[in-house]
């Protein structure tokens, strides 16, 4: 199988993987009772009507976790080609990878020291 054929498989697979969960939803839509009223459609918040906008503000801590994750994710993705080629590499390349990971660790240590990883 050549490259494009492989990905054609993934494409057809994605389409089928999309259809499979849709199918029960459609079947359910056909068979299920549809007798909605205002009370049923209320937001489920302990029987009390929703107060204010749902899109309330959240603390910035969530953003910091996302941020640290983003930086790590990008760097780890760079390590994948390095790991694939590892059996062809020499000590110099190992050193380069090591330095790369050390710079990454720096960022983690900084975030740790600055308590950006604490759940406050």
């Amino acid at each position: 199988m050549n490259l494009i054929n492989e990905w054609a498989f993934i494409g057809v697979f994605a389409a089928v993987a999309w259809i499979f969960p849709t199918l029960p939803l459609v079947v359910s839509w056909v068979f299920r009772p549809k007798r909605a009223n205002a009370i049923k459609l209320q937001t489920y918040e302990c029987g009390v009507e929703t107060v204010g906008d749902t899109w309330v503000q959240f603390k910035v801590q969530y953003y910091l976790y996302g941020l640290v994750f983003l930086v790590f994710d990008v760097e780890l993705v760079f390590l994948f080609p390095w790991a694939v080629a590892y059996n062809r590499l020499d000590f110099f390349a190992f050193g380069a990878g090591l330095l790369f990971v050390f710079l990454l660790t720096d960022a983690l240590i900084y975030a740790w020291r600055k308590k950006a990883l604490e759940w406050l």
Partner: protein
Amino acid sequence: MPTQCLDILNTPAACLISSGIDPGLAEFIGILLGVLAVSIAPLVIVIGLIWVERKFAARVQDRIGPNRVGPLGLLQTVADALKLITKEDITPAGADRLIFNLAPIVAVTSVVLMWAVIPFSPYHVGVDLSIGVLYVAAVGSIGTLAIMMAGWSSNNKYALLGAFRVVAQLVSYEVPMVLALLIPVLLAGSMSIQEIVNSQRGMWFFFFSPIAAILLFISTQAEAGRAPFDLIEAESELVAGYNIEYSGMKFGLFFAGEFVHVLTNGLMLALLFFGGWVGPFVDDAPLLGVVYLFAKGAVFYVFSLLLRNALPRVRIDQMLAFNWKFLVPVAIVNLIVTAGLWMVVRQLGIAPGAGFENDFLANVPAAAIMFAGHLLLGGIIMTMVRNAGRRQRAKDTTTTALTVADDQKMVTAQ
């Protein structure tokens, strides 16, 4: 040129061509058959898994579990599915309809898509992508998006709050997971999962890097949202978190997605560290590979069940601290140590060279060195954790002792 029809199970396209169908169409039919076989499998298996899960939990809790519908309650899941399908489905007022309906579909799709690259035997594999491992990580990260969509579109504060916490958990645990996935890639020199399994014919990668295998198990457990990391559900605190507004089949889809995810994680762990379909006589009878793979995957699945039933739920701050202050540093050190040891082993010339990957004995010296190195590393980590725990406990006891003394003083003063 008429291609020989060797094996209808392995090469359906060739068989169709030899029976006189247009090659392009035959190829397409072949792809479609493969897709259907691989994508139906997880959805059928999940029906059995739910039964296993309920029976297991029941035994742990000294109950019988489902036992009415069908023999041993085997058809209970089918009855549940029928009930979910015919149940009234409520989309809350103010919800973002399109995204609300899309979210469960995306959640299931992201998990099922992983099955495209799982090799079941030396010949039976959906498609052996050259970037297989990265594909699994990438497809898995779409699941995070589904949860965000579900939480936001429900127009419910609990749902949004739950979604935020879940996404913080999922993205955090993705870091040690990807770091652990790097290890088999590094050892095999390829991201293709089939190739990774092939290079474990002599020796499982578990013996080259046991710590990475443990890291992968823990982080995938969190990725699938299983106890002790089941803050995704957290029925008692977050009233079910992001899927609070979901009912009927849409809720069922989230549920099914979680079950398939746990099994997929077990299979991935078996493939990347425990040899996948490798086992005796697998070259003579390729279908034995399927049995080996699922047996290995089932072990991890049952272990996951055991953890779920035995452990209490952790708090979110403990969970995130455990990830960023323990798992990620350990994973980074593990990567450095594994890469360094592997380099040393190669320079010493005892790494199993080309042609000797299948030989168990040729792998022993390299594996022994790397296993010993990892044992040492594990020992150091455990000692550090123990000392840190002792310090913390010492601090805690002094503070509690003070407060107790203060209380007594206040009592006597009164």
